[in-house]
């Protein structure tokens, strides 16, 4: 039961994290470079553009779902299992999803980086 609950919540956490990262990344590309925007039109304009973006709102909802899935997972398993498992799987999930949904050019350099970081994260907290 403990394992089932732990891994179910980690799976839900990874799903929400990847979904959130992808839609938020798309939202921020639609908003534009916030440094540039802030310099020109002020902070309020940045906030208004972000809150008015549908992808941004979907991303916030997904991140909130992931946050509570993480709290639930942490209450059942050690952070030394939850954090590396969720982070590694999210790294790999994001690399695949960014290529498919965001059309990012995930070249060999980025695949290697994603794999190295995912393996490193799994080791560092494992």
């Amino acid at each position, binding site marked *: 039961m403990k394992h089932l609950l732990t891994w179910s919540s980690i799976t839900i956490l990874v799903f929400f994290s990847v979904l959130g990262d992808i839609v938020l*990344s798309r939202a921020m*590309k639609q908003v534009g470079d916030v*440094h540039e925007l802030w310099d*020109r039109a002020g902070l309020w304009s940045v906030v208004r553009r972000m809150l008015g973006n549908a992808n941004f709102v979907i991303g916030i909802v997904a991140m909130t779902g992931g946050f509570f899935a993480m*709290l639930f997972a942490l209450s059942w398993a050690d952070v030394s299992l939850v954090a590396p498992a969720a982070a590694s799987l999210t*790294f790999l999930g994001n690399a695949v999803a960014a290529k498919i949904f965001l059309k990012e050019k995930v070249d060999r350099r980025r695949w290697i*980086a*994603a794999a190295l970081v995912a393996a*490193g*994260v799994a080791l560092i907290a494992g």
Partner: protein
Amino acid sequence: MTLRKYLVLAGVAVFGAAGDSMLAHGMKQVGRISIHHLQEVVLAVLNPWVAGGILLLLAFFAAYMSALSWADLTYVLPATSMGYVVLALMARFVLHEHISPLRWTGIILISAGVGFVAGGPTLTTHTHDRPETFEDLEAEEEPEEVGVGEVER
């Protein structure tokens, strides 16, 4: 890449790592949450460590959104994973915890991954829906290059 952009990436790494550690510490104090009492997960935010972790994660979120506005997701994520390395080094040199050879291997792998992605371009997408300029805000201003679709090194 400007100094400001490096600072934003460092902010993502540090705030994220510190926030996660505070949440983890707080949830150890809160204890296990039963599947039959899921509302307890909401009450967990009343724990001061959890609340502090949430504040740090809000700072993380602001820096993260800023980074995603000018860089690819597959660039930002590896670049900011240095936070894990910072956490491990802090555990070793500030808290004097023992770091096993396995964890040192992890630190080296993450650093290598960061090195791989850091040498490449920050933005590879040609997002047609990305604003070229912000002319809707200040039409009279001389439009500057925003660097859309151009590969920045």
